[in-house]
């Protein structure tokens, strides 16, 4: 399965890129985050984050499909 990842804020700093395409097996965002967090040493545990797939917020057990765009959202600080 191929996923498109967009990174923002501290996760982008940790990954060293703003986006990447990864090929790996992960049924849901929870599993995907576990893989990528180990790879990039993300500074936050999943409990602090929200996750969006294809532009909409979803649960961590959302079923991923090949080609999905996935964003892990750190706590926001706009305004």
């Amino acid at each position, binding site marked *: 399965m191929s996923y498109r990842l*967009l990174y*923002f*804020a*501290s996760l*982008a*700093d940790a990954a060293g890129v703003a986006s990447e395409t990864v090929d790996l097996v992960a049924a849901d965002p929870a599993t995907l985050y576990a893989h990528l967090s180990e790879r990039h040493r993300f*500074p*936050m545990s999943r409990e602090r984050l929200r996750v*969006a797939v294809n*532009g*909409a*917020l979803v649960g961590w057990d959302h079923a991923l499909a090949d080609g999905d765009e996935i*964003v892990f*959202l*750190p*706590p*926001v*600080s*706009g*305004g």
Partner: protein
Amino acid sequence: MSSFRLASGAIDPRAEMHALDDAGAGACVTFEGWVRNHNEGRAVTRLDYQAYAALADNEGTVIIAEALERFGVKQVHAVHRVGTLVIGDLAVWVGVSAAHRGAAFDACRWIIDEIKLRVPIWKNEHYTDGASGWLHPDNTPVAAEQA
């Protein structure tokens, strides 16, 4: 015409105000968020705002619709900057028009609270000592908790 948008260039409040025109409105409340020269005791030189634009547009639009419904106001409009800002720059503008002032104040305050809570925008502060860092919603640094 009520709406939400991200702006990559300077926000002009007078231009945005036209979205609030309504002959039945007797009250208009606006909120402007300005880049301050300090945060948490450190001197700030500039900010970078990063946004996940697709979701920010969606979330902002939902907030606007909820405000219209919840407060019964006439028009609601909000704009948030992205990119690099310096001291005194306008980071976010929220405007509400309503028949009466109570609803206009309540809606405006609720909208900026919700934007800060829900819209995927992140602030990176740069300090006079050359350091920088991403902030949490309460303006405390993300980096501190890693120490």
